[in-house]
């Protein structure tokens, strides 16, 4: 392909504050329509906005985490446009003087590490919600109006659709580590618009771009950018020109389409909001927030490798989500063997969470309970195979591993007399296989082990079964 893809992303990240950005109404999602409202967010005459301190702190956290410089003084501005779900006729945002400037994210989409620079991060408020699909009219819910957002704007440094999705996942990981947002794309707490253009390889100048909206999953971001790049390529190769416009991604049809009619209004006439005074971030606040920053994934993964002697691969998987890393760290302390703990979290635990659509915080098998099970494996009280059965049973009640093993009679049999008796029985019941084994078909060893384990319902100590068999078959 002779064209190079150029993508810049604008990501809106909804903050998880208790109250809205400029009034004390609940910022909670899902309450009955128009019940989280007050004169400020309804834009009743005379009501005055006051900025939520937490929003400033969250913006500073994200700025520091992405290597931005934090403006000592920043200004809230009005972005003017008319839409029924925007009661004031303007959105409070930041324009000329945003709170964070010039940062960057390191991402790796499988072709080595790349740096995507950030232009800015600014504070703004969300609009209300329009519902178009009931009857002939449009219905407005103002609950979301005034909910705080941070908009993160990247330079057009992204070169593949995959990179766009990895960048977004990285940003999501950071806001979740910071605890400032749920970062959920499907529920709209992370929203992404992509500016897409093509240029010939080697060209300095960017081609005409289109803006794509309405991509509500990482997969859709990739698909939409790929679709749009291909659309541009076909137009350019046919000698046509791209028209600069906003396009909506239609996930069902797998295509973007032009958003006609809204184009002329892109003159927002920003000006400083006279109702709000400048935001001052002094050294003291900056230092305090810097100290509160959590340990980030890369640093934590590195520490896991050092502290628990687990492979770098494991540490990477375990630190993707902060909650999983917390779970592992607690478990590793309790289980004594960190590698075994890591295997369980990466295997059984993450698989179960995925199958049951659970988050690790709501998982009933807590580190304390799983730690108990892993200690039983280490001491030989249960076999690995049986432990997986116990793990399943542990999800049905809050009984401990010991209690379940006791109740279900799942303890490992390491009594050599009992094992010998079973082995004798199996050999006597399978004279044909026994003869074949003695004639050199030693592969039948596996058959005998399997028969013995089945007979003992998997509870026999497998190492002992092996030893007894070797002894008897050799005789």
């Amino acid at each position, binding site marked *: 392909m002779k064209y190079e893809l150029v993508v810049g992303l604008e990501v809106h990240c909804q903050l998880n504050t208790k*109250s809205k950005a400029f009034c004390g109404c609940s910022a909670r999602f899902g309450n009955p329509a*128009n019940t989280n409202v007050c004169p400020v967010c309804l834009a009743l005459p005379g009501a005055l906005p006051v900025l939520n301190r937490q929003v400033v702190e969250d913006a500073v956290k994200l700025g520091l985490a992405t290597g931005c410089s934090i403006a000592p003084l920043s200004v809230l501005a009005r972005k003017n446009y008319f839409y029924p779900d925007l009661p004031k006729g303007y959105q409070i945002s930041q324009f000329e003087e945003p709170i964070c400037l010039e940062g960057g994210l390191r991402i790796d989409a499988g072709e080595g590490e790349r740096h995507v620079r950030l232009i800015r991060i600014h504070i703004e408020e969300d609009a209300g919600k329009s519902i178009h699909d009931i009857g002939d009219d*449009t219905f407005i819910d103002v609950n979301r109006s005034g909910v705080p957002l941070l908009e993160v704007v990247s330079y057009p440094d992204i070169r593949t659709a995959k990179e766009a999705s990895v960048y977004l996942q990285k940003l999501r990981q950071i806001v979740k580590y910071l605890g400032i947002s749920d970062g959920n794309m499907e529920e709209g707490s992370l929203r992404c618009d992509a500016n897409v253009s093509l240029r010939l390889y080697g060209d300095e100048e960017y081609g005409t771009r289109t803006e794509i909206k309405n991509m509500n999953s990482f997969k859709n971001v990739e698909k939409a950018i790929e679709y749009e790049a291909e659309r541009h390529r076909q137009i350019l190769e046919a000698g046509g020109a791209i028209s600069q416009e906003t396009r909506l991604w239609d996930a069902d049809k797998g295509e973007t389409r032009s958003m006609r009619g809204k184009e002329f209004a892109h003159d927002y006439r920003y000006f400083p909001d006279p109702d709000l005074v400048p935001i001052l971030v002094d050294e003291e606040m900056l230092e305090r927030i810097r100290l509160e920053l959590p340990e980030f994934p890369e640093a934590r993964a590195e520490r896991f490798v050092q502290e628990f002697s687990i492979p770098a691969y494991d540490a990477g998987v375990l630190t993707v989500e902060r909650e999983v890393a917390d779970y592992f760290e607690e478990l590793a302390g309790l289980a004594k063997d960190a590698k075994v703990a890591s295997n369980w979290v990466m295997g059984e635990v993450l698989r179960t969470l995925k199958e049951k659509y659970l988050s690790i915080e709501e998982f009933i098998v807590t580190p304390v309970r799983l730690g108990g099970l892993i200690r039983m494996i280490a001491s030989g009280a249960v076999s690995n195979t049986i432990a997986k059965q116990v793990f399943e049973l542990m999800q049905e009640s809050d009984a401990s591993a010991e209690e379940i093993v006791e109740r279900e009679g799942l303890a490992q049999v390491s009594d050599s007399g009992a094992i010998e008796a079973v082995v004798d029985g199996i050999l006597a019941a399978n004279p044909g296989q026994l003869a074949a084994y003695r004639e050199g078909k030693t592969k039948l060893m596996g058959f005998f082990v399997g028969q013995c384990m089945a007979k003992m319902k998997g509870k026999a100590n497998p190492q002992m079964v092996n030893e007894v068999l070797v002894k008897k078959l050799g005789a």
Partner: protein
Amino acid sequence: MSVTIDDVTYIAELARLRFSDDEALKMTDELNTILHYVDTLNEVDTEGVLPLSNIHDQKNVLRADEEHEPIANAAALSNAPDSQDRFFRVPKVLG
């Protein structure tokens, strides 16, 4: 600085205002009188003076992240020209 009648028509459209031709002419004259008056400020030497975004000498007027009691849904809808169930109702707009 001054504006033309085209500027006035454009700004009126953005502000969702509708003027007759006479009104637009009158508005252009009046706006130009105001702009001319404000032009006097350009005579002041502002070299080295930071732009002022707010006339109050205050910074960081912030509130704690606490919830207040919202107003009742019925009260919120009471001034609306039209409503249904818990919603404001407006003429159909395209999504």
